[in-house]
């Protein structure tokens, strides 16, 4: 399998995640889309590691997973807090800050 197919696949997944961020207003789904993006990057990195025959990419994948976990923890805590204060998880509802 030429390695490029992995790159293209992960690029498409990244694009889907990015499109999802623009489409959805639900904060939880939004984070899911971010997770999707991070995962597709992981795929790129793992494929590149295989392509170059070195460990760097795999190590990076490992760290990205750690980062994703940390981000999710904070993000979900934020959402929970937001939900209890304002009763919604629609990212577009709070609009006090503008202009």
């Amino acid at each position, binding site marked *: *399998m030429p390695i490029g197919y*992995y790159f*293209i696949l992960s690029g498409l997944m990244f694009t889907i995640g990015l499109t*999802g961020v*623009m489409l959805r207003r639900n904060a939880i789904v939004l984070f899911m889309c971010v997770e999707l993006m991070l995962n597709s990057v992981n795929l790129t990195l793992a494929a590149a590691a295989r392509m170059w*025959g070195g460990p760097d990419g*795999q190590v990076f994948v490992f760290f990205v*997973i750690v980062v994703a976990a940390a981000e999710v923890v904070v993000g979900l805590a934020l959402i929970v*807090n937001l*939900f209890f204060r304002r009763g919604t998880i629609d990212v577009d509802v709070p609009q006090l800050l503008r202009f």
Partner: protein
Amino acid sequence: MSLLAQAAEVAAGDTAEVVLFWVFAVLALGAAIAVITMRNIVHGALMLVLNFLAIAGLFLTLESPFLSIIQVLVYAGAIMVLFLFVVMLLGVDNDDLLGADNRVRVAAIAGGGLLAGAIVFTFVGPYTSEASICGPDAVAATGDQVDCVGLSQVYDEDDGAGAAFLGRAMFTRYTYPFELSALLLTVATIGATIMARRRDLAPEDEDEADAGHLPDDPDAPMEAGRELPIPISELIGDTDATKPDSMAEELSQRRPDDREV
């Protein structure tokens, strides 16, 4: 040699890899699309799990069984459980918040399509030739084609899963980021405790009344005066709204008009 390593060896073989790649690729893409289009969040989350699992499978075909395990454990296991837990906790299982306007959808999808096109354009060619098939293949890279080295030779014989391979790099070359990631988790933990605490015992939380100048109802109109930005003519005058709003008016007002005494 562990079972997983054997599976990886089989998976990364020529024909099996092609088959598995396409299966997992279709699964991953389909699940990803489902995540961003499904209205039910729980379904979406399950689709995300499916996507993660498909990627775990792809890691196998990429000769990285250790990553595959981590992927299943951390992502599909821990992170997704957290997601589902929060979804259940908040009781918002139905999402009717899909961007309401068709135009947004068209624009977003058009943007995504452009990006996807750029990605395909970038990789097709140099990375999709025969030379880019991984392993010690007979086809040598020519022109701008890229050769794929593959991982089969760099793994030690008894390290089928690549854990030692990974660990060696992580604890030598990448010690510092490893330590930093510990810091990251600390920060995340502190952050989550600050954020998710329902009630602060001590120190006392900010009074609800203190924030009372803000409309509680998010749909309420803005406070007067915040609605519009400052007209620029005010920049040169002062903040007093009763003043003439331009320099010229001020000047004309100041002109003494009492020539005939």
